[in-house]
């Protein structure tokens, strides 16, 4: 693979004032997912499951926009926005989701198995909570190497019920690891509302470990940015972990195709009203927005074109990358 991931057009600050840059990054996530969502229902379709984060862009971009390529994140089964915000190339992401040879994992893995260590992305994950121990280990690795890089560990409110969340909080607090536990509360856990899953409030659980707990409006890009920047600064300074719960809303079903019929129209309307991309847009100069939108459209179009022009992955990819010697 000759493509380089060093300078992704996705989310690195691009010289534009950062409010605009953040907006552009959110719009990229939004349009990327809308585009694969359309493909999903097209004839060719997407050869695997799709968990859309449409409506949750502010959490990913607010958290990742200001990170360094050497900072690390772990994502989830619903992680397109995390990947793009951390600098994944939309074209290779698109290729992976469409099962193309040029995808990040040769089109074998799809949405739940995008991992790009060279940009600090230790993977979306098919296992709920599966990224939490990895994030903790990465933070330990950074600490051992005395780097002032940090780790952001994304997980959902449903994942907060997994034992590893607690194991990680306790250990990270004991070791003062450079990590931010970012709970992306989109108010739904698979096929039901979160009332079945969360006792009490997640952000309040930090106190039991002497870890600061923060609650933030996950649809407000500035609020997320401020909360995460503070937590990241704390982590870089060696002061240990922070637990942030960002409240947002899952616009669609659990997976593309799931109608989430249990939700009332009002519920969905109210939820979508908090649209973080629209909110960010209002604060910006319409001309700049138009330019940014045009740039995003071009980038998405190019990404789709790249993916569709790439060969569909054949059986040969099954045998790759099992061992160094293989």
């Amino acid at each position, binding site marked *: 693979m000759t493509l380089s991931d060093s300078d992704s057009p996705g989310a690195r600050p691009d010289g534009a004032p950062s409010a605009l840059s953040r907006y552009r990054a959110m719009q990229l996530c939004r349009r990327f997912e809308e585009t694969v969502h359309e493909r999903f229902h097209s004839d060719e379709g997407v050869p695997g499951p799709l968990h859309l984060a449409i409506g949750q862009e502010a959490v990913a971009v607010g958290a990742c926009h200001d990170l360094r390529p050497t900072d690390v994140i772990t994502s989830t089964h619903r992680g397109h926005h995390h990947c793009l915000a951390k600098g994944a190339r939309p074209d290779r992401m698109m290729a992976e989701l469409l*099962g193309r040879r040029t995808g990040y994992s040769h089109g074998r*893995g799809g949405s739940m198995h995008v991992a790009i260590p060279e940009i600090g992305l230790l993977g979306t994950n098919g*296992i709920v909570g*599966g990224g939490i121990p990895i994030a903790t280990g990465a933070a330990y690795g950074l600490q051992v190497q005395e780097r002032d890089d940090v780790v952001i560990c994304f997980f959902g409110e449903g994942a907060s019920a997994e034992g590893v969340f607690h194991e990680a909080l306790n250990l990270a607090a004991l070791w003062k690891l450079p990590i931010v536990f970012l709970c992306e509360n989109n108010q739904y856990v*698979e096929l039901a509302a979160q009332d079945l*899953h969360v006792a009490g409030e997640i952000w309040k659980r930090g106190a039991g470990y002497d870890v600061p707990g923060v609650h933030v409006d996950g649809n407000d890009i500035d609020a997320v940015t401020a909360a995460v920047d503070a937590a990241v600064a704390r982590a870089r300074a060696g002061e240990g972990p922070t637990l942030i719960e960002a409240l947002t809303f899952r616009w669609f079903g659990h997976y593309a195709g799931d109608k989430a019929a*249990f939700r009332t129209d009002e519920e969905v309307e109210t939820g979508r009203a908090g649209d973080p991309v629209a909110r960010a847009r209002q604060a910006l100069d319409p001309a700049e927005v138009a330019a940014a939108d045009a740039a995003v459209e071009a980038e998405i179009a190019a990404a789709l074109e790249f993916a569709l022009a790439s060969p569909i992955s054949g059986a040969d990819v099954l045998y790759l990358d099992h061992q160094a010697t293989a």
Partner: protein
Amino acid sequence: MSTETAVKATKYWQGISQALVEEMERDERVVLVGEDVGRAGGPYGLTRGLQDRFGDTRVRDTPISEAVLMGLGVGGGAVGLRPIVEVMFFDFAMLMMDQIVNQAAKYRYFTAGHALPLTIRAMCGAGGHNGAQHSQNIEAWFCAVPGLKVVMPSNARDAKGLLKSAVRDDDPVLVIETLGLLRDKFDVPQVDDLLIPIGVADVRRAGDDVTVVATGRMVDRAVAAAETLAEEGISVEVIDPRTIAPLDTDTILGSVARTGRLVVAQEALAPCSVGSEICALAVEQCFAELKAAPVRVTPPFVNVPTPLPLVEARVPQADTIADAVRAQF
């Protein structure tokens, strides 16, 4: 399967669903716990209506806490319930290994004889397009654990009858269901109480020249291969063990001793698998009768991909099995 009783075309998932309803109706100690099994009617829709029917205490949605979810079965079973624990994807059992292997399987041993009537229903992702963490056939791990019984229904009749038997069993039984079969239709006999005994293999097709032992999605492929081979004059006996721990060695090895030839077809990877075990048993106990080397037909030793075409490119097909049989002669 008796030809006298009336049969009805039934989908695999319906067989499971019927078993759940019948057993919960029959015995109020039977409960079902799992992720989204209640309010949502199950990730595969096969528990739809159960919560309305039996209440949200007996059909209970759990948080995403697999270790404690399995503990509900162990502790619940210890105080008088007959719990059914649903494992959404078999792979997630990796988060429950301590409760299954160190606790449930050893409960009768530690208590010097107390029953633990626990049924674990795990949906194996074979045949789906959910990728390397949602499609693993790890059944062999459990077949190596004293105190556990493991069944693997390959059709709607067995999905129903084995599950009903598992619920009535006084020891932990792991029922491995297969995602790729959920919407397939099979004939299911219309009897009051369809019980398929645990520990008894099913001779799907009688034959004299070679024994093919197949599990899960490979069973119907083995039968298809047998039909093709019949036209070529090769008489194939197809055996579905149904229970993979303990194995019905009388039926399986009896057949091998008679035919002198063995092909095992499975979706699990070859190393240290149920197929390895069957081959090892066959050679240990039928050496004199063997006319050719027993072989295993399995996927290559690589991860399961996500796109369906690649999934199928990786697993044995009827042709693959037929070729392996031809190579026996």
